[in-house]
């Protein structure tokens, strides 16, 4: 056949740009991680400074590592591999640059706003609405550029790596948009349109699938491209990769509710999440096996090649993490692990081991090719590998031990049937030695990152003054479909082979897979009334309490404190009556939290006098010796922004929270009056005077309200008029 060849060059400049910022943001994100790890053992390192406190820096750490370090690495990998697999330059250089600079601007905006306390509170979705809109726009730019390149490709078949990229682009867009639907309350303030149980469900539908489609599928795509390249061998089983792909895409999206076992989430959703999480074992291990067996016959290279070493350990961690994930989703295991450091260990095994090592392997493989020179030091790359491996092991072993210790101490009873560790602080203090080992392990991992950065910098310095742009040749895409793909009928999967060459059809089926699975859970969750039995005694927060809730969110209190008492004896004895779905109907957003470095606060209302809270916020160790909580002295100095407070009440009313017109109109005045009463009581108890209009008073108002509504009246009505908790044993009171 006489085919006319077309000449083209790849755009490697954009890959170089993304690779360099991957290293830069990796350093920043990990250093912030080290700072917050140190703050847990040395609270003095919060420096009594608002923008350096743990609650504000923790989301900066997670966002920087996920969206800046991993995100830029994804873009580098996608831009490099897609061009080569499609035999086409990216569709638009301008869109590539807009994508790059737009994403960096988003990262900078996050790095500024999060420490300043602008947060939506939802994990991995903390960024406020203007940044969320920017993310959506830049993601569309990325998608347009990617799909444009697919359209003008010169290779009919879409290699499996590209399928994973398509799933990433489609699913992240859906997840990001639907989890961030908000009502705007100010220039950098918004409230989720969902409340309580439904908000929690949407958040973990998003949160779990952010792990799936941001930290898993793109890296699997990169594994299927870069591992064969580094090993110089094809993937072990292409058919297994197809099975891997569809199983992951269909199953992953269902698994989110396992983050909410034994909470106020309906049991059917919880069980559904558990079952599909357990099913994930299958495709995940299929992928791991496929990755490791790709190295068959090439294992001798692993001993000599740092790139392959990184990839092998990364895939091993993928296998370990995807074994542990389903294990943690089993309700009885989760009852022990949830709210403990076990989750933190699991996340870091995946993030440092799987994601981090995939990135490092890719960086070292790309460096000589992108900068058209030898890697500056292979020995340094080897040293990086060993230091980082030891670092991960120290980190996760210590934090696994911490998680198990914490979980067992939470639920331990003595021989007389009382809590063995009734003071929460006992469970925290016991973990400090393990937290020190984490600091050591994390420091080693970061030291490896510094070596990587140095190697990148020195390799870059040795690059030629101007890069060669080698030309490539390939025939234009034929209109006729290849014969081997067309025939064979249904049972021989001809249908699938055709999809593999048709990006639009393929993408539509990915959307169908993601959307149908999502809707199967979301529709019943929102429509079935019995999911959230209403409680007549539960009323909206007062304007001051609502503003106090905003302060709670702004300071990131939910990063350490849960507001969800599970119907487990050790929890009801420690904290009080278990949480009910109807208690959260006005909670936009929900604040159940996901870990307990400090105690649960669901029933904190009325437990301590106002003055205790004043002293506790000013210096936590004055009320709880050995506490590792940061001090919040600025709360007593910063005045309430009454305009923002009124805007918040109006926005909540828009969401359907039943505030009267007078309450909305007179929100500021109502807040002033309640603040005056609280400040007066503090002064009467011997505390400081003049706190009337401070953020501290607003926060105290909120904390004193928490969990008290159900004690005001026994009128607990379900949809059928019965008490929501009828037939259940009365929970133990504090």
């Amino acid at each position, binding site marked *: 056949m006489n085919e006319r060849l077309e000449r083209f060059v790849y755009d490697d400049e954009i890959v170089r740009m993304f690779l360099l910022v991957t290293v830069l943001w990796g350093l920043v994100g990990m250093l912030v991680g080290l700072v917050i790890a140190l703050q847990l053992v040395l609270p003095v390192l919060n420096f009594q400074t608002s923008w350096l406190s743990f609650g504000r820096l923790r989301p900066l750490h997670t966002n920087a590592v996920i969206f800046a370090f991993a995100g830029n690495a994804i873009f580098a990998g996608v831009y490099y*591999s897609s061009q*080569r*697999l499609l035999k086409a330059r990216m569709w638009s250089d301008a869109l590539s640059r807009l994508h790059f600079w737009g994403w960096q601007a988003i990262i900078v905006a996050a790095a500024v706003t999060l420490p300043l306390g602008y947060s939506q509170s939802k994990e991995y979705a903390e960024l406020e609405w203007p940044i969320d809109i920017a993310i959506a726009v830049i993601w569309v730019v990325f998608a347009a550029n990617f799909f444009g390149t697919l359209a003008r490709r010169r*290779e009919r*078949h879409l*290699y*499996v*790596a590209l399928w994973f990229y398509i799933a990433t682009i489609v699913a992240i867009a859906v997840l990001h948009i639907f989890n961030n639907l908000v009502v705007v309350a100010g220039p950098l303030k918004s409230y989720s349109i969902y409340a309580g149980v439904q908000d929690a469900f949407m958040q973990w539908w998003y949160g779990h699938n952010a792990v799936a489609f941001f930290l898993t599928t793109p890296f699997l795509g990169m594994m*299927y*491209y870069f591992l*064969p*390249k580094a090993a*110089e*061998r*094809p*993937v*072990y*089983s*292409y*058919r*297994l990769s*197809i*099975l891997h792909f*569809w*199983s992951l895409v*269909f*199953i992953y999206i*269902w698994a989110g509710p396992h983050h909410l076992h034994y909470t106020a989430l*309906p*049991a*059917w959703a919880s*069980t*559904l999440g*558990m*079952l*599909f999480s357990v*099913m994930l074992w*299958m495709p995940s291990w299929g992928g791991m096996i496929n990755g490791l*067996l790709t190295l068959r016959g090439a294992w001798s290279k692993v001993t000599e090649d740092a790139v392959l070493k990184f990839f092998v350990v990364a895939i091993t961690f993928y296998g370990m993490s995807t074994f542990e994930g389903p294990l943690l989703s089993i309700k009885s295991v989760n009852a022990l692990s949830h709210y403990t450091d076990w989750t933190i260990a699991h996340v870091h095994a995946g993030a440092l081991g799987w994601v981090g090592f995939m990135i490092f392997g890719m960086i070292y493989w790309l460096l000589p090719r992108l900068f058209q020179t030898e890697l500056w030091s292979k020995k340094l790359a080897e040293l990086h590998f060993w230091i980082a491996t030891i670092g991960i092991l120290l980190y996760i072993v210590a934090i696994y031990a911490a998680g198990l210790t914490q979980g067992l101490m939470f639920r331990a009873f003595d021989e007389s049937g009382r809590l063995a560790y009734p003071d929460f602080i006992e469970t925290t203090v016991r973990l400090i030695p393990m937290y020190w080992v984490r600091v050591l392990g994390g420091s080693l991992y970061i030291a490896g990152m510094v070596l990587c950065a140095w190697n990148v910098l020195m390799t870059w310095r040795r690059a030629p003054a101007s890069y060669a742009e080698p030309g490539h040749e390939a025939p234009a895409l034929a209109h006729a479909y290849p014969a*081997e*793909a067309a025939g*064979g009928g249904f*049972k*021989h*999967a001809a249908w*699938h*082979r055709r999809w*593999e060459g048709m990006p639009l059809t393929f993408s539509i089926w990915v959307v169908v897979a993601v959307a149908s699975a999502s809707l*199967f859970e979301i*529709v*019943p969750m929102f*429509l*079935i*009334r*019995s999911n959230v039995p209403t409680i007549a005694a539960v009323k909206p927060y007062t304007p001051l309490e609502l503003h106090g809730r905003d302060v709670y969110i702004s300071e990131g209190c939910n990063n350490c404190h849960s507001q969800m008492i599970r119907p487990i004896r050790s929890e009801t004895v420690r904290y009080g009556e278990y949480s009910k779905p109807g208690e959260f109907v006005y909670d936009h957003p929900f604040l159940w939290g996901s870990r307990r470095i400090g105690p649960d606060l669901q029933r904190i209302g009325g437990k301590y006098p106002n003055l205790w809270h004043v002293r506790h916020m000013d210096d936590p160790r004055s009320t709880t010796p050995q506490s590792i909580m940061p001090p919040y002295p600025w709360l007593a100095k910063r005045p309430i922004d009454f305009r923002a407070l009124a805007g918040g009440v109006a926005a909540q009313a828009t969401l359907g929270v039943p505030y009267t017109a007078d309450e909305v109109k007179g929100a500021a005045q109502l807040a002033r009056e309640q603040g005056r009463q609280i400040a007066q009581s503090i002064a009467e108890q011997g505390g400081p005077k003049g706190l009337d209009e401070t953020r501290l008073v607003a926060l105290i108002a909120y904390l004193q309200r928490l969990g008290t509504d159900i004690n005001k009246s026994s009128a607990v009505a379900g949809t059928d008029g019965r008490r929501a908790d009828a037939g259940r044993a009365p929970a133990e009171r504090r």
Partner: protein
Amino acid sequence: MSLSDVMSAFALQVFPEVGFVLFGAAFLVIAVTMFLRRNRTYFERARFLPLEEDGGARQGSEATGHE
């Protein structure tokens, strides 16, 4: 009767079991069709795509590979 009433009448406790059966069946269908011997030639070419840039020279030596 509202959509909410319709949904509320569903026996949601069987959702996990129904989901498990449906997706288990879908998994088996995909698995069986993927591993039919007849598809071998097509997949054999596809798995070498990342290596084509390097000349694809290894395809011959890999012909006895798994696929």
